[in-house]
């Protein structure tokens, strides 16, 4: 009989940078960008575009916004928890988790390799601290985040659940079941962020399958919606997330429509879907790294 490799609960001590300065956050962003392009380049596969577009969001979330415990446990009781629904942007997720101290930074070197905990798409299967659900097959993360938010309410835990979703991912119908549920049942301890980069594999979202006014759609389903125009400005993200936090507990789930630039920080990857799931070659890597000089030390 098959036995999963994971334990029910596992933990690892990690360092918590208390009150980082804006400069420290921005340096971390640059380092994470380097990690992303180096990881994807090494195995000639993976998804750099969406990862780069959400780098500032991840840094803001993990270094500024979420209240996190110093050890990781699956149940996440007594801390804020996060679910990544668009699992293909695993490079940014792994880099930020490692930089935050959930697992050794050098493990980024194993991304997408045989026997690695850093699978192409995130999984709990191999016991990687920081990850609480597998994602990759799109459209499932919001339901999971709702379940975790309901569990927090049952547990009398007033911490929040955060989630991130691609905009193209909203074409999956399960999202709308989840959006309807959260609005209808007043799941008001959930902050779901939509990465509105307007790109998906086959092109612009509005050409492939128009999403139209995403915020309006959430609103009519009973959500409190905040538009974040500067989705790659770390200060704006932090400010918006804090605003979102202040709107929780008021009978509505909170949605942030975060307008980002896919491939942000690497000029030739910006404003195009071309780098959704494509790795840079040696020359392109050198260009990308030159635009993002080493700050905290490469893995």
């Amino acid at each position, binding site marked *: 009989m*098959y036995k999963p490799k994971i334990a029910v609960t596992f933990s690892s001590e990690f360092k918590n940078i208390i009150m980082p300065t804006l400069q420290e956050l921005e340096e971390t962003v640059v380092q994470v960008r380097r990690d992303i392009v180096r990881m994807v380049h090494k195995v000639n596969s993976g998804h750099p575009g969406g990862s780069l577009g959400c780098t500032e969001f991840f840094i803001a979330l993990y270094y500024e916004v979420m209240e996190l415990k110093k050890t990781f446990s699956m149940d996440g009781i007594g801390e804020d928890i996060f679910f990544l629904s668009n699992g293909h942007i695993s490079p940014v997720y792994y880099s930020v988790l490692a930089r935050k101290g959930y697992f050794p930074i050098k493990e980024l070197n194993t991304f997408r390799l045989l026997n690695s905990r850093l699978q192409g798409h995130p*999984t709990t299967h191999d016991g990687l601290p920081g990850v609480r659900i597998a994602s990759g097959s799109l459209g499932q993360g919001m339901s999971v985040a709702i379940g975790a938010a309901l569990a927090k309410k049952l547990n009398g835990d007033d911490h929040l659940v955060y989630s991130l979703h691609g905009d193209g991912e909203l074409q999956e119908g*399960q999202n709308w079941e989840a959006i309807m549920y959260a609005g209808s049942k007043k799941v008001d301890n959930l902050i779901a962020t939509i990465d509105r980069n307007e790109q998906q594999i086959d092109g612009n979202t509005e050409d492939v399958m128009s999403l139209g006014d995403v915020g309006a759609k959430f609103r009519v389903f009973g959500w409190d919606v905040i538009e974040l125009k500067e989705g790659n400005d770390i200060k704006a993200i932090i400010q918006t997330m804090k605003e979102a936090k202040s709107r929780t507990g008021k009978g509505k789930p909170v949605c942030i429509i975060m307008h980002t630039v896919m491939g942000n920080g690497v000029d030739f990857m910006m404003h195009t879907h071309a780098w959704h799931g494509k790795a840079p070659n040696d020359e392109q890597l050198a260009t990308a790294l030159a635009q993002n000089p080493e700050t905290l030390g490469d893995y």
Partner: protein
Amino acid sequence: MKKYIDQGKKDTRSGYGAGMTELGRSNPKVVALCADLVGSLKIEQFIEENPERFFQVGIAEANMMGIAAGLTVGGYIPFTGTFANFSTGRVYDQIRQSIAYSDKNVKICASHAGLTLGEDGATHQILEDIGMMKMLPGMTVINTCDYNQTKAATLAIAEHHGPVYLRFGRPKVPNFTATDQQFEIGKAIVLSEGTDVTIVATGHLVWEALVAAEALETQGVSAEVINIHTIKPLDEKALLASIRKTGCVVTAEEHNFLGGLGESVSRTLTQHYPVPQEFVAVQDTFGESGTSDQLMEKYGLNNKAIEKAVLQVLTRKK
């Protein structure tokens, strides 16, 4: 052969409901979800006693599976409830990624499985669910035979860590197993000992197997009847012990013969002790409207079909 008494017909889904009521009182971590089929799943009492631990998700099964996965993160033991068709085929990828691959402690409880759902017809009569669920790594697959066993299984799966598919049905059928039974996941139950043939049955076919064995006895055939409530993990040891004695086997299930109990038994035999086998199962077709009894008759899933299969397998026995 050992005789079993029908204590009065009851539906297996009511056994689930009774189990949930008991769990509601005994295990504060158990929560129930339902996709607009509370009455069909018989969980009214659980809801009345534990309104805060019940989540009505509406007609949105994919979302229900995801919410269940999320609830486990906070330490809860979610029991999802809907028809077997909507518990599996409709949400296969949600179960695969968010529950099975993520090793989430979700109990997928599925009523109205198979042909005995009756008049609603083929759109609702899933005959492929055991196959789909048993192929998922880490998934435990249980198909109970009567009210008492379904109640016992409901209690038992709450104590088991890991995803479980619990399959039961709609109609009232003989309730013949013990009221105070301990349900042991993965443990076959030899209901009646015999020497000529082993009948391995699951779900509603277990009672039919007992009836068939009785009729066979009058014809001088000694049948051993095994109740396989857990299809995965399969109790290969018990199965092989019986088959080494009898030398042939008939499997009986309310499921397609592709992907069901019969195939699991076949694989075990082929690997360890090949003997002739006959399959009492649906022959790779969809169902249709009709009463439960009419359908079981037409598709060859009753005691007469089992009896016939036994006589057939005996002619092939060396």
